[in-house]
């Protein structure tokens, strides 16, 4: 067999705009999912036993079932009860809910790594609860688990390809479309794989730069 990448050229624009869709659904799912994850952790470790059990159950259920099945439940299941989501929203909702469960576990490790001494120091200084949480607990916790969050972000980006199965027009979906138009299977799959790989690499690089900008303060725990 022979390879010919020229057939793919007319589709370059489509491929790149699909890549952009992949990136923005991943970013939305990461940002909203992380906020939800912090709430899940607070609910799980909080005083109310029922809320704590509910949050634990949520985390365990979402971490122990496949993303694809969660996606099917949202995309095919919700319309039965009258909630119709288009593929984009179904994909974003599924990725967000799934990501929140994993990120909640990452944040658990992060919050547990904050030494109680500095929290007590903050209390002794008379900080309000909100200030204390934000500056003394949340930021150091995020800094400690930032590499794990980056890893989760990259995994989420790769997992966003699963949304192609319900027809969300992201990168994987576009790859399959182009395959149907050109029959250049090997070529488009290799280009698509390379795109995922390169963008994931860029995310890793960007994260390292962001880490030094955001968390450059104080003494680094992990050199």
């Amino acid at each position, binding site marked *: *067999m022979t390879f010919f990448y020229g057939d793919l050229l007319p589709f370059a624009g489509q491929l790149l705009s699909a890549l952009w869709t992949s990136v923005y659904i991943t970013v939305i799912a990461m940002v909203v999912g992380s906020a939800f994850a912090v709430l899940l952790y607070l609910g799980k470790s909080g005083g109310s036993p029922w809320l704590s059990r509910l949050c634990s159950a949520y985390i*365990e*259920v979402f971490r*122990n*079932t*496949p*993303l*694809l*099945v*969660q996606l*099917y*439940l949202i995309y*095919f*299941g919700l319309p*039965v*009860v009258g909630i119709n989501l288009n593929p984009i929203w179904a994909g974003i909702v599924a990725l967000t809910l799934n990501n929140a469960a994993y990120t909640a576990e990452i944040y658990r490790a992060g919050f547990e790594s904050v030494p109680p001494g500095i929290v007590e120091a903050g209390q002794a200084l008379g900080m309000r609860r909100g200030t204390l949480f934000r500056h003394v607990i949340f930021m150091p916790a995020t800094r400690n688990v930032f590499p794990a969050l980056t890893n989760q972000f*990259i995994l989420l980006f*790769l*997992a966003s*390809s*699963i949304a*192609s*199965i319900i027809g969300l027009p992201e990168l*994987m979906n576009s*790859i*399959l479309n182009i*395959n149907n138009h050109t029959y250049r*299977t*090997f070529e488009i*799959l290799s280009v*698509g*794989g390379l795109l*995922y*790989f390169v963008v*994931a*690499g860029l995310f890793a690089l960007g994260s390292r730069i962001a880490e030094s900008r955001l968390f450059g303060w104080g003494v680094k725990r992990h050199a």
Partner: protein
Amino acid sequence: MLRSFGWQDIEALARGALWTLALCAISGVLGTLLGGVIGLAATSPSRIARWVATALVTFVRGIPLLIIVFFAYFGIPLLFPDLSLSAFATAVIALTVFASVYLAEIFRGSINAVPRGQWEAADALGLGYVKKLRYVVLPQAMRIVVPPAIGFLIALIKDSSLVTVIGFVELTHAGTITSNLTANPILTYSVVAAFYFVICYGVSRLGRWYEQRSPTDKAAVDPEEKPSALQLEGV
């Protein structure tokens, strides 16, 4: 012909669950063997072997499983037109490739986690590379491998749902068929999710039990551990 969700559907889903288990068991074992080889290459004294293994692992870990699945599905018949593989075999190949690079990374990390002193002691005893691995490094590395490997096995079980796209009837695909037959996606996929939950939660409990069962495992790799006086005098 629509019918309501009944016992026969649960039976069909259970059969799908068995296929999922078979798929993950076979590709888990093959992936462990292949991953072991790649992991050894990534820690070998040969610079070329290290480079090739690391490049392979880095690349395959950076692309989605779906790409690997479609590569196996479309690519193998293109490269080997005479070979006709079943959907099961294609799925096993894709999941094996996927599993091998993740497990190779786990092996590499575990081998590197064996304290440097152990390697040097083996060198001092004059052991060759193979004997050093066989008697000194690998027995210790294997204990470190188990917890992350079980974590990956759980991920593999969940990710195996993706082979539904090439038409292999495992648990998720059985769910799609049942959902179409009964027009009851909520109940069907909830049962599918319950099956996955039981399998994955079961495996993770098994892993936790294994870790608690062998408290000495941590001490085995603890560089701080001093040999007891009894051991020193006895040998």
